[in-house]
């Protein structure tokens, strides 16, 4: 029952993110836009490229969706609303997100097209750049909570939210989340202006619909992770816990989308340089500061 409710709310969230994305892209707010887009995609012929790696090509969009859903499974929307409250929840988020990379790699290779291939390898090239900035801030969050349980992580922010307790970690995690969900300005693997769609380029019809859905769920999942790790999860006055979770998650995903709307795409070399030379040292400094703070003011 709980699982069903959470999956449905994830899908609803993904739908709202799609509405927002369409709003930014066209300048018109239409609630039905993603529904029509989905109907159009489902009705369209799903073309398979000439000599694909069929297994990879078919598996990739589904794997992307599954990875996003699995990561969401350990994130609580309220003290009781969590699909699986694993004792290793914070680590599990990383584990599930790692398969986003695998999905993109499979899509890039499976399409047998140069645009997709370059897009897939690009995402792999960035892996250390962004995954370190996901893992290390989460470590600092778990340090404060002294637990990997996501519900414990939320309760540890009772006094002060992590966004204030470890602001460096929040900024790094937020930026790296955008890179994991390949949102603009980090949309290098699916860049329209560079690669005509990149890993998405050869997908049409149902397969593209699944791919897009997977990406929207991924955005919501990452926003939920940001909320749980940094914004005090379900905590807030007056409104019921699930409502606070929903508000925060939607606000974070809106911020992620808006950020990309007003910025040009980052250069591949600059992304790597900044993440390696600035991001990783900052993440280590964050770990150190939080470590000291946990000792003097938990």
């Amino acid at each position, binding site marked *: 029952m709980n699982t069903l409710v959470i999956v449905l709310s994830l899908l609803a969230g993904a739908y709202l993110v799609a509405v927002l994305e369409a709003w930014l892209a066209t300048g018109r707010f239409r609630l039905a836009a993603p529904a029509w887009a989905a109907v159009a995609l489902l009705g369209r012929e799903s073309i398979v490229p000439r000599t694909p*790696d069929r*297994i*990879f090509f078919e598996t990739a969009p589904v794997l992307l969706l599954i990875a996003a859903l699995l990561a969401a499974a350990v994130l609580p929307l309220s003290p009781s609303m969590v699909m699986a409250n*694993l*004792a*290793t929840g914070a*680590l*599990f988020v*990383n*584990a599930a997100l*790692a*398969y986003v*990379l*695998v999905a993109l*790699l*499979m899509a890039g*290779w499976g399409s047998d097209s140069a645009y997709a291939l370059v897009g897939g*390898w690009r995402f*792999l090239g960035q*892996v250390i750049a962004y*995954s370190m900035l996901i893992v290390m801030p989460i470590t600092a969050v778990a340090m404060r909570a002294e*637990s*990997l*349980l996501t519900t414990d992580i939320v309760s540890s922010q009772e006094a002060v939210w992590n966004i204030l307790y470890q602001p460096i970690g929040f900024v790094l995690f937020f930026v790296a989340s955008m890179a994991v969900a390949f949102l603009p300005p980090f949309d290098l693997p699916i860049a329209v202006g560079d690669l005509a769609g990149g890993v998405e380029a050869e997908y049409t019809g149902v397969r593209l619909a699944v791919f897009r859905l997977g990406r929207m769920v991924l955005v919501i999942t990452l926003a939920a992770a940001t909320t749980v790790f940094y914004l005090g999860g379900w905590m807030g006055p007056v409104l019921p816990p699930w409502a606070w979770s929903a508000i925060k998650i939607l606000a974070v995903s809106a911020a992620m989308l808006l950020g990309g709307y007003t910025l040009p795409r980052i250069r591949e070399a600059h992304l790597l340089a900044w993440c390696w030379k600035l991001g990783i040292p900052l993440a280590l400094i964050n770990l150190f500061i939080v470590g000291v703070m946990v000792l003097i003011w938990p």
Partner: protein
Amino acid sequence: MALISLQTVFIAFFGIAAIGFGIWVFRTSSMMRSALALLFSQTALGAMFLAMQAEFLGVLQIMMMATEMSIMAIFMVMFMMDPGGLGAMEMSHQKRLSILAGVAGALATAGIALFTQWGVVVTSAPAAAEQTRALGTELLGRSMLIFETAGVTILTAMIAATAVALPTLQRKRNA
């Protein structure tokens, strides 16, 4: 009883999946398929850990293998002559030696499993959080020096290798 048998079913399922993917590694001639088959074989092992209630180890295995095997994939594609596998390249080499090594390895593993004094077998696995704590104590207590030394050595080696390979530094040195 029902629970135990369900657990056994899961362990068996993931074990067979791991072996199946492992076989696929050598049955295909595409580097990419081979690398990803290995990835999913290792993921199945991780799932096996989970089925055996070793949560932390399972999740860690699943996480590490995704990135590690993906990185291996790009190196296989870069350095092998026929990454697409359209030349139907043979994936196994030195067959006699590898069969011998495989049989010896299997026998050794089985021997260790059967003849080690494992001590008293507990009736139920400790809770996941407890396991994580115990593992942490083991890694950061008794074995800390070993792990830290190994970690720092590997990191230094990686940075040094990168620095040596940087063309800008070479150019400066030559000038």
